[in-house]
């Protein structure tokens, strides 16, 4: 009797398998933040972002750039450092239920990565097309680039790195080595950021017009393909979850 009561109490106190609050918060934080960013672009893109030699450009865009650099480096350092520092050193001895809970938590990370990739690779990248085909650039740090290259790309890189580190430090599935496709899905999109160097060099050397299909942009295309590495991650996850549930679903 006492043992049963204890067991029920333990179950009631146990954390849920999927923390829905975390999931909703993860998606909402990106959407709210990027809605604010889009509002900022709308207001200060036209009023302060057309001439990089104007004082208001320094105020509204270069200062934005400096602030985001500092915040991104500190966020990456703190987040990745925390995930590594708090790693589970006995990860192979966790219970199946705890493993399942961690897979759910891992998927909260992956959902966040999906949202971050969407905003970076889709929303702000195509936005860059319409801005630069409309406005002639006179700097590498245009309003569009300050957001696209130096904000939305680092955000998905930080999120992808967080997902990878979470899997690597807390899930038994990823202890056998490094998943090649997980690395492709996180390192590939990361490489889009260094490729900005080629893009900016090319735009200052060859042409300032914006032809989106110009070969100068093919580096972005090549590394964009690596997002398909998520198919391999799904394969690993489906196998791991199926193994945990197989007995009960049979």
């Amino acid at each position, binding site marked *: 009797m006492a043992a049963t009561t204890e067991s029920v109490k333990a179950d009631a106190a146990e954390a849920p398998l999927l923390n829905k609050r975390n999931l909703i918060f993860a998606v909402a934080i990106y959407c709210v933040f990027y809605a604010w960013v889009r509002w900022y672009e709308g207001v200060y893109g036209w009023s302060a972002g057309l001439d990089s030699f104007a004082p208001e450009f320094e105020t509204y865009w270069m200062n934005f750039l400096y602030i985001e650099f500092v915040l991104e480096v500190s966020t990456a350092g703190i987040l990745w450092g925390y995930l590594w520092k708090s790693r589970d050193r006995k990860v*192979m001895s966790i219970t199946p*239920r705890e*493993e399942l809970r961690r897979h759910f938590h891992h998927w909260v990370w992956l959902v966040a990565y999906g949202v971050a990739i969407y905003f970076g690779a889709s929303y702000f990248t195509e936005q860059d*097309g319409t801005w630069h085909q409309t406005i*002639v650039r006179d700097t590498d740090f245009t309003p569009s680039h300050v957001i696209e290259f130096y904000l939305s790309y680092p955000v998905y890189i930080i999120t992808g790195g967080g997902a990878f580190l979470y899997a690597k430090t807390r899930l038994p599935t990823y202890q056998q080595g490094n*998943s090649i496709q997980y690395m492709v899905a996180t390192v590939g999109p990361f490489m889009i950021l260094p490729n900005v160097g080629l893009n900016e060099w090319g735009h200052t050397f060859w042409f300032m017009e914006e032809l989106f299909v110009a070969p100068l942009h093919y580096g972005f295309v090549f590394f964009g393909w690596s997002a*398909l590495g998520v*198919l391999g991650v799904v394969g690993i996850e489906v196998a791991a979850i199926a193994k945990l549930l197989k007995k009960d679903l049979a």
Partner: protein
Amino acid sequence: MSASQSAVRSRAEAVKVSRTFDWLICFTLFFVVLGGYHVHFMLVAGDWDFWVDWKDRRLWVTVLPIMAITFPAAVQAVLWWRYRIAFGATFCVMGLLFGEWVNRYFNFWGWTYFPINFCFPSQLIPAAIVLDVILLMSNSLQLTAVMGGLAFGLLFYPSNWPVIAPLHQPVEYNGMVMTLADLLGYHYIRTGMPEYIRMVEKGTLRTFGKDVAPVSAFFSGFVSIIIYFLWHFFGRWFGSTAFTTAS
């Protein structure tokens, strides 16, 4: 971990867990594939897709299906060949169109003020459905690549025709004959993309008049077959679950 312990308390919970993972996977796959597909598509075919005055009878018809069949082929290679999910191509194209429509509305219209009927995305859903149905019915890589790839190229122009036809009507303006789409382009100035960059109606094929679009579609279908094969194997590689050896 102990093999005798169970991760769930009951079969009902196992079913619920399984369904929840399905939704999480579906959501993530949709947005990650969307991101990769969109960045690929906008940078290899985007200009023809952004603006109606780029949507000509030749390069638009040729380039877009060839570049659009890539991710559907790769995703089908995993979703169908591993999980027997039959909507890989449509799933990709729906993602791409979601990304494009959101962008055209909030950014092309909302930030740079081009009207939507000047910058709407091309229609790819009918061709993607046909690609999925051919795979579903045939369960054959070869047949899907050859018949599906060809259909993907051939169907592109007809599926866009209802929306593009009014904009391809000829107009006379200052003594010059041009399409209504061209005229829109001349009025909506894009300073960063001047007229000398626009690639439309190039080459001698245009002298064949009415044959331009069908010949371009046929050529596009031919290349789409080859691209389908290639990207099917890319997809298989991306779907692999190998690990590097732990030290």
